[in-house]
C-alpha cells in the first residue's frame, strides 16, 4: 500500500463523513456507492452517510465527460475510468462515457466495454481516504481493472494501509476475503510489506 505525498488523512474530528451526488441518480445506483463505502467503514472507525446536499457533503460524487474543469479530462469509453482526490478534498469523479453496470454479473455482459461500477467506486473511495496505488494485484488499490471484471473486496494490503491511517473498526474481526497477510508473507518469504 502507498499514501499520497505527505500522508494526508481525514482528521480525527472529521471521521463521520457525508457524501452527496452531483447527478440525479436512481436508488439502485446510490445503493452501489453505499455498498462501496461499507467496505471501508467495516475495517475503520470511519462512517459514511448519504446527504441530499451535494454542496455541503464532505465527499462529492459526480459523473462527467471529457474536460470537466479539474485539469484531468476523461477520454471516452474505457481508458481512464475515474479519479479521486486526496483528503480532505473529497471529490470523486467518474467518466460518464463508460458503460457502467450497476447490477448483475458484469462478467457475463455481452458488452465488452462494460465496467462494474461498484468495483471502481471501492477503489476511488480508497483514494478519498488517503490511499495511493498498490502493486499488489489482489488489492483494490491496484491501478488497473479489466472491463467485465468485478473486484469489490478489500485485500489484506488495503486493510493494512487504511488501518495505518485510521486504526481499526472495533467490530472488525480481522478477516478479509483475499489472501491473509500471513499467507502472503509465507508465500513470498516475508520480504514484502
Amino acid at each position: 500500500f502507498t499514501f499520497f505525498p505527505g500522508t494526508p488523512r481525514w482528521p480525527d474530528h472529521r471521521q463521520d463523513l457525508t457524501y452527496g451526488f452531483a447527478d440525479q441518480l436512481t436508488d439502485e445506483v446510490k445503493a452501489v456507492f453505499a455498498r462501496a463505502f461499507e467496505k471501508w467503514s467495516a475495517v475503520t472507525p470511519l462512517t459514511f452517510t448519504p446527504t441530499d446536499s451535494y454542496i455541503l457533503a464532505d465527499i462529492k460524487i459526480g459523473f462527467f465527460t471529457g474536460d470537466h474543469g479539474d485539469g484531468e479530462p476523461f477520454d471516452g469509453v474505457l481508458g481512464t475510468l475515474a479519479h479521486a482526490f486526496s483528503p480532505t478534498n473529497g471529490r470523486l469523479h467518474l467518466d460518464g462515457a463508460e458503460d457502467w453496470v450497476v447490477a448483475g454479473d458484469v462478467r457475463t455482459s455481452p458488452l465488452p466495454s462494460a465496467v462494474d461500477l461498484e468495483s471502481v467506486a471501492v477503489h476511488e473511495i480508497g483514494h478519498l481516504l488517503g490511499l495511493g496505488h498498490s502493486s499488489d494485484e489482489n488489492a483494490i488499490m491496484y491501478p488497473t481493472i479489466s472491463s467485465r471484471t468485478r473486484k469489490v473486496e478489500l485485500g489484506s494490503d488495503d486493510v493494512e494501509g487504511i488501518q495505518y491511517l485510521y486504526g481499526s473498526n472495533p467490530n472488525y474481526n480481522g478477516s478479509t476475503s483475499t489472501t491473509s497477510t500471513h499467507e502472503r508473507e509465507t508465500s513470498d518469504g516475508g520480504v514484502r510489506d
Partner: protein
Amino acid sequence: RFFPNITGLPPLPFSKNGTLAPWDAFTKFAGCRSGEKRDGLAKLKQYFNEFGYIQNAPSNFSDDFDDELEKALRVYQQNFNLNVTGELDDQTLQKIVLPRCGNADIVNGTTSMNSGKSASFHTTKHFHTTEH
C-alpha cells in the same frame, strides 16, 4: 450510461461506437526498444507523463524511444510486477492498454508502489511483522 440489468446490455461488437479503447493503438509498438523511432510513440510518452512516470514534460514529446521513455518503462514494469526489460514487450503492452484509474501512480515525483520502496523500509516492516 447505466445498465441496471445485465440482460439489458446491447450486444455490440466492442464499444458502443465501434471504436477501439483510447490506448489500444499502443499495441502496434510491440517489440519497440531504445534507439528506435515509431510514429505515435509521443502519445505513449504522454500516457507515462499522465501517470507520473515522466516528469517535466516538454511542450511536445518526440516519437523517439529515448532514455527517458526507457526509464519510465522500467519503473512501470517494476510497479506492475512485470519483467523489467525496458522494452515494449507484449506483457507490458497488455497491461498498459487496460482500463485504469486516472490517478497517477507517481505523484509529484514521489515514487510509490514497488519502485518507491527502499530496502530499509522493507527491513523495518519485515522485523515488525515477524515480531508481531
